[in-house]
């Protein structure tokens, strides 16, 4: 067991990425994730890696595309407006089946928005994020330790399924400091016989490509990709349940919202309300099973979000509208207080019965 060190969330991501074997980082400055780039700028030259400040988010994601095509582990990080700029590249990475890790330390939007924490890129992250049929594996850390753990996990899943993993954090997660243990057993990355590293005149040429002009062929690659997605749904869905065994009310929250919700749940329990939490750790694939199960047991679900209500739509689908689902939210960079969540739990407990 390694000693714990006190780290900022953004720094924990950067160091965990290096431990996971990522030697290539490309980024463009944007608040509140810049510590990742600053950390990489210091560390990468010391370990024989590459840190390069790109001329734009668009260039950064395309540098990622280039490294990913060679089979090396590679990442970029940004914050909400910057992720929008990376959208084109995310679609190409998906179309060419290239593995990569993308970090979004979210801030309030839309537009230039603000620089305070937000979860309002949930739709963008979980529903594809750009043109075409595709998904990313979306991981939502709720502690600095998870910022690191899910970074390592993200690289492993990206390689395993040849796709992009996204860490969907928020400004709070990026900026706050907590003790972290960084003791990982890193499994060797899988063989990548598809990588474009030169034929060495020993094989047919490899082609990294997302262009399929014949509709039958493009349909086929889409169906094949969704078979992989089905396997991910089956095998990689992650969530945490907290006090759900006897719960009458289910709170749903991820990231920083889940930590606020736990405080409110503890207080509600003291007041005799049986309430629990489902915390999705993978936002895509969304943990449908625990919500489906909860829908037959609880009388209401409360979705706590730092947005105008985005995850709530997936909860309604997973619970098949069997129970009322209410929204407890702040937006624009504001964070719900435990008191606000407690009020929402009480309201659901009083009025949520069918």
């Amino acid at each position, binding site marked *: 067991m390694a000693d714990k060190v006190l780290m900022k969330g953004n720094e924990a991501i950067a160091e965990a990425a290096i431990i996971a074997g990522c030697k290539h980082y490309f980024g463009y400055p944007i608040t509140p994730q810049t510590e990742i780039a600053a950390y990489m700028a210091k560390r990468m030259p010391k370990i024989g890696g590459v840190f390069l400040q790109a001329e734009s988010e668009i260039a950064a994601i395309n540098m990622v595309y280039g490294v990913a*095509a*060679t089979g090396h582990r590679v990442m970029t990080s940004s914050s909400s407006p910057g992720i929008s700029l990376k959208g084109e590249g995310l679609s*190409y990475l998906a179309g060419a089946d290239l593995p990569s890790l993308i970090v979004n330390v979210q801030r309030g939007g839309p537009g230039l928005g603000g620089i305070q924490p937000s979860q309002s890129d949930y739709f963008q992250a979980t529903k594809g994020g750009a043109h075409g049929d595709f998904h990313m594996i979306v991981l939502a850390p709720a502690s600095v330790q998870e910022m690191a753990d899910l970074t390592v996990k993200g690289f492993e899943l990206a390689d395993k399924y040849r796709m992009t993993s996204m860490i969907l954090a928020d400004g709070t997660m990026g900026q706050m400091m907590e003790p972290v243990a960084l003791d990982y057993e890193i499994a060797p990355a899988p063989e990548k016989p598809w990588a474009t590293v030169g034929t060495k005149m020993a094989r047919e040429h490899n082609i990294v490509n997302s*262009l399929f002009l014949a509709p039958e062929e493009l349909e086929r690659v889409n169906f094949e990709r969704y078979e992989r997605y089905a396997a991910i749904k089956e095998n990689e869905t992650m969530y945490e349940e907290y006090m759900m065994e006897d719960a009458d009310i289910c709170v749903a929250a991820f990231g920083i919202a889940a930590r606020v919700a736990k405080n409110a749940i503890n207080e509600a329990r003291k007041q005799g309300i049986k309430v629990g939490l489902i915390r999705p750790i993978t936002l895509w694939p969304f943990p449908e099973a625990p919500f489906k199960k909860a829908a037959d047991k609880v009388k209401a679900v409360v979705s706590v979000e730092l947005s105008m209500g985005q995850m709530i739509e997936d909860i309604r689908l997973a619970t098949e509208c069997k129970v009322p689902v209410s929204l407890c939210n702040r937006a624009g960079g504001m964070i719900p207080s435990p008191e606000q969540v407690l009020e929402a739990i009480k309201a659901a407990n009083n009025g949520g019965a069918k």
Partner: protein
Amino acid sequence: MVVFDKPNALADASMHYCPGCTHGIVHRLVAEVMDELGIEGRTIGIAPVGCSVMAYNYFNCDMIEAAHGRAPAVATGVKRAEPDSIVFTYQGDGDLASIGMAETVHSAARNENITIIFINNAIYGMTGGQMAPTTLPGQVTQTSPYGRDVNHCGFPIKVCEMLSELDGPEYLERVAVNNVKNVKNAKKAIKKAFQNQVDGKGFSLVEVISSCPTNWGMTPKKALEWIDEKMIPYYPLGVYKDRTAAKEETK
């Protein structure tokens, strides 16, 4: 005795280019250079969106298809990850000088050790003949049907001249492929642009003045003449930057 053969680096595929298009000539020159330098096995080519997007079918080296304009950024990633590889991009004028201008300028400024083959035919070919950043003043295209009006949509961009103001690039030359003499010069320039990369010298770009008979609405022969009459006067051929030669001169 074989006096003329297909280069090994050129795939045995029928190309989709229009009759009279000069892409085929430039593809051949790039492949000949790969053969002559013995680099095919460690070369990775990058073809972004444009008429040459399917170049991945025409070269036998490893190939990457890239988003419109982004090839120099993709090439940066490949080269930084695999420094011993030889990386080239093959880009058209809309790709390199319009949507991808930032990637072009910054890869040049960083002196990325890559080779760029820049096809300037003054038009967007793949989408059917729209105005390009290099379309000549007065030139009629689908989106400049009354001729390019410089008061309305500005002037063509002279890429070699513009990049030559940067401290970064190693080598910039403009060539043409409209007659035998010019094709021979183009071959020399392309070979130098690859040799520079092999020698670790840095960013080398060859702008190739090319024809697009289909979208220019000309016969192939007339299109080649039009290069001499209209294109070359506006885009003079020659070396715009050669840092190694400049250093040798000052010795």
